[in-house]
């Protein structure tokens, strides 16, 4: 029931998104005016789909990362994975400029995976009694990789490209330039098959193993999904923060952590959040645009503060 409500809400947002933009467009034009049809198919529809795909995938993989890190305040985009993705695509652009796009993608995904594994290795020995150490270490870790990215970009005279990967925005989304996000969408959707096992990881390694879970394989599969999604989003849109942090926390607060049940909601809310933020970014000071990452940064930070201060005793 609630799932249907969410679905209707996101569909409504999608319809709004399709008809908002610099060029006015009415539903009738789309079917009568060939120019309007073209605009719809090459710009508005891809942009809306990109927001939905990225939002859903980021929210899902944020949730998965939080289980793998055993900490609710870790988010791939800010905890090293996002920066590693930027590093990967930067290195690819510098070292193998002529390589086809898919090779650059794979390299970005690989560095993202390495960055995520590095994070887990780094935070595993931290004492579970100090839950705030994990996000602190993650933040510093992300900052370090970010600094390396800046250094490489400065040396390679690529600072202007860097902004594209570090600030997520959707204004550049056109047909033919966003399709990689479908890979992110598929990777995120595939996690549904391991959602039950990931939930069991959340009970602790000992309990998971005693229930017959292969902890290592499930962790690896989860990390792979996190890395693919982060890399694809960073490369196509740029980094979008907070989605993977706020949405899973919201959902967990209301519905718990039984992922096979909650992941559909996580996906819907993530998709809705990014799309709504993009709609805001397009309308606040039209005809100019505010990057979606900036809008989410503001909204997400406020939402997160509210979440933190309403943290129940046992949370």
């Amino acid at each position: 029931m609630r799932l249907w409500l969410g679905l209707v809400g996101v569909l409504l947002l999608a319809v709004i998104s399709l008809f908002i933009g610099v060029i006015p467009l009415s539903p009738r034009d789309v079917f009568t005016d060939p120019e309007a049809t073209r605009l719809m198919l090459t710009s508005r529809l891809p942009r809306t789909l990109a927001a939905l795909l990225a939002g859903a995938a980021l929210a899902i993989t944020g949730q998965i990362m939080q289980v793998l890190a055993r900490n609710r305040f870790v988010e791939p985009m800010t905890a090293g994975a996002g920066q590693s993705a930027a590093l990967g695509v930067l290195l690819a652009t510098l070292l193998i400029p002529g390589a086809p796009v898919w090779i650059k993608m794979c390299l970005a995904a690989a560095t993202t995976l390495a960055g995520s594994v590095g994070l887990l290795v780094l935070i595993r020995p931290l004492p579970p009694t100090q839950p705030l150490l994990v996000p602190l270490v993650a933040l510093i870790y992300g900052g370090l990789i970010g600094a390396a990215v800046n250094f490489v970009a400065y040396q390679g005279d690529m600072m202007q490209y860097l902004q594209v990967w570090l600030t997520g925005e959707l204004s550049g989304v056109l047909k033919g330039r966003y399709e990689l996000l479908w890979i992110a969408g598929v990777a995120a959707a595939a996690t549904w098959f391991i959602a039950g096992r990931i939930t069991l990881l959340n009970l602790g390694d000992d309990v998971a193993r005693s229930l017959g879970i292969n902890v290592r394989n499930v962790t690896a599969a989860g990390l792979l999904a996190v890395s693919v999604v982060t890399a694809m989003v960073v490369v196509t849109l740029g980094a979008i923060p907070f989605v993977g942090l706020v949405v899973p926390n919201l959902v967990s607060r209301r519905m718990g952590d039984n992922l096979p049940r909650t992941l559909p909601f996580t996906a819907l809310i993530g998709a809705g959040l990014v799309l709504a933020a993009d709609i805001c970014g397009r309308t606040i000071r039209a005809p100019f645009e505010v990057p979606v990452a900036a809008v989410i940064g503001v909204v997400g930070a406020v939402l997160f503060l509210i979440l933190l201060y309403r943290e129940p005793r046992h949370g």
Partner: protein
Amino acid sequence: MISIRGVKHSIQGKPILQDINLDLPRGGVTALIGPNGAGKSTLLSLIARLQPLGTGTIRVDALQIGSCSDAALARVLAIMPQSAQISARLRVGEAVMMGRYPWHRGRPGKRDGEIVEETLRLFSLTSLADRFLDEISGGQRQRAMVAMAYAQETDYLLLDEPLNNLDIAASRHLMRLLRQMADTGRKSIVIVLHDINYAAAFADRVVVMREGRIVADGAPGAVITPALMADVFETDAKVHLVDDRPVVLV
């Protein structure tokens, strides 16, 4: 039968277990007791393959620990680890359903639902089924964890200090349940206990450990004596027999 042969274990060069040989036949309640640091929990987690086994062999029925698959063992043996602290926000009913995982592998069927219902009823958790684990009392949470291990429907059930956080009523309730499972459900229960009197009152057999070795093994009446209290626990306490069961006066 769980059979343990020549098991040694050390952590960072420090010997934790030495020359452990022990047979735990099917059925009954076996209590592992001993002072802190005796290696009881380590032994339990070695049997449940939660730590890699170095020297020696452990077999659970036909399964050899270390070479059998986790999934196969999960249908034969369940463990409730010590202070199983769960940070996940799960409802009690959901958590108990997790215990069914070795059987449904992610697709709970009707039968799993029935077993969960039955388990919740048995552990008096039915009214709490929809509450989150972090919203109930420590004792209730502990009971839910045991229920989860029980729902795994294994022949062997290992429990590491399940009476932590439990008051006397809850402790008695849980021990009676375990007793009943051993008597009528033909389960074999191995339980690490701190309170010797609970071991004496409910166990068929008591295995006493000290400094990584088994120092006594037998029926509570034969094992729990003033001499053992003085020798192993370094406690000068009287032991009385009440209803043919030894009671340590603390």
